[in-house]
């Protein structure tokens, strides 16, 4: 994690981020953010002349102790800078939605990731209730990818 990039990030994102840590084994930095700050940080990163983060590679959701953690893997096609924006949302109960801001206006390719995460993890981006097209009927609304959803292998019924 080159320090020049970290200082640059601290300068332009003063006070908006909680902390900067190395992601995984430390190739590139990951910025822990507040849920509300996500949109403004994303816009700043995109317009910044030095960074110009204009592409999103992957948005993955993981359920850890801090709740559902959304990690946006973003990079810039111009300056080859790679970043990870991490935000955590605590689900109130097992079956109701978690509210999260949507970044479609900043990075348009996030749309498909958000639809799927909305359906599997029960995250409503910008208040839209996820329209279910991945899951079969009996599992809709149960948000199967959450740790709370226990999956039993269906018994093999031997038909007479």
């Amino acid at each position, binding site marked *: 994690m080159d320090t020049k990039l970290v200082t640059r990030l601290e300068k332009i994102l003063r006070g908006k981020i909680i902390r900067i840590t190395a992601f995984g*084994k430390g190739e590139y930095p990951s910025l822990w953010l507040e849920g509300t700050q996500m949109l403004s940080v994303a816009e700043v990163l995109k317009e910044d002349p030095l960074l110009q983060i204009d592409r999103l590679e992957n948005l993955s959701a*993981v359920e850890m102790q801090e709740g559902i953690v959304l990690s946006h*893997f973003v990079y810039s*096609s111009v300056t080859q800078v790679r970043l*990870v924006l991490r935000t955590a949302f605590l689900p109130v109960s097992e079956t109701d939605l978690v509210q999260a801001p949507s970044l479609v206006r900043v990075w348009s*390719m996030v749309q*498909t990731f958000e639809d799927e995460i909305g359906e599997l993890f029960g995250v409503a981006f910008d208040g839209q209730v996820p329209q279910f097209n991945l899951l079969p009927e009996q599992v809709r609304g149960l948000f199967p*990818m959450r740790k709370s959803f226990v*999956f039993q292998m269906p018994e093999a019924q031997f038909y007479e």
Partner: protein
Amino acid sequence: MSRKDWSIGPLHTSLPGPMHMVLKLHGEIIDACQVETGFLHRGLEKQCELHSWHAALFYADHLDPEGAVFSELVLCLAVEEIAGIMVPERAQSIRLVLVELGRISSHLAFMARMARSVGSETIVHYVLRDRERILDLFELLTGARVSLNFLRYGGVKGDVTDGFIERVLDVCDLIRFRMKEYNDIFTFNAIFLKRTLGVAPLSVELIEQAGITGPNARASGVREDSRKGSPLYQALEFDIPSGKSEDFFAQGWRGLLARTSKGCVGDVHDRFLVRLREMTQSIEILRQLVAQMPLGVYQNTSIHIDRNYPIPPGESYQRMESARGRLGCHVVSDGQNFPGRIQFSTPTRASLWALPQLVRGIRIEDLPVVLASLDLSIAEADR
């Protein structure tokens, strides 16, 4: 003019997989189309979290039926980075041999689908016959034709027998010879050119907006290949093929006459040509790999399959260039003997998102051709 709505159901001969499309037709021109997938959602990532780390490898194998090697490799790279497992040299080159063979077999399957959508049955049979030679190679080395399940954390499951090296070289020559035959019969055939030149061009703005990667993007001139940056491909030199934006000529005497009407860059014919050229690149890479195959252990012996084989806590994100585009895998491990979270970011998802804009304005008969040219794998998009 009569406007009709027509919904092409999940099971239809011209669709590359179970997807449901509602087309707003204006006569024969498609005004708008709405794509709905989700029929192949098998809950792969949830299953990974229920079983041991090695069973997760098996599930990654089933992400994409045609390109089993790619998802296995990307998961192995991610887990090896978390656990700090060192992969011996020989295992890496065996993995790359499998990856390049998988790329050629996936592109041959693409050519078969493309030929079937245009209606030339002969080429379908030729291409699938040559793909069999590659599947035989897979069976010889790994024991299975499609879902190989051959990669392990820290290396490969078995060693390469020397008979395999000669067979790989034979297959390379065979594919090289066959591609000249495909060009004579199919690639520069006047009717095929008429059906594909200038059809559904993929503009660079749409590529950036949808995040399309891989051959579909390279066909429109976006020269970007994640193999270039990755450490695995350092020792090999190969160039990134792109559409006919640069020199385009047909071989042989028909070449003189084939001053084909220059369809715009990034159209269906470009996507076909890019994959043909990528196959030649893969053959060159295979030749270099097989020539400098290092000796040594094929697997990091400190790792053995055990039901409570823990991976230290940590997370990592690895990406590699699969046959359809950039395949990424985000692995989170919280120290137990089963994975915390495994998430794949697949290239077909972006093409599916861009499909409605691409399909607007083309004729209904060109729909199967455009769908085949995007090389969509619904199994990969739904997971």
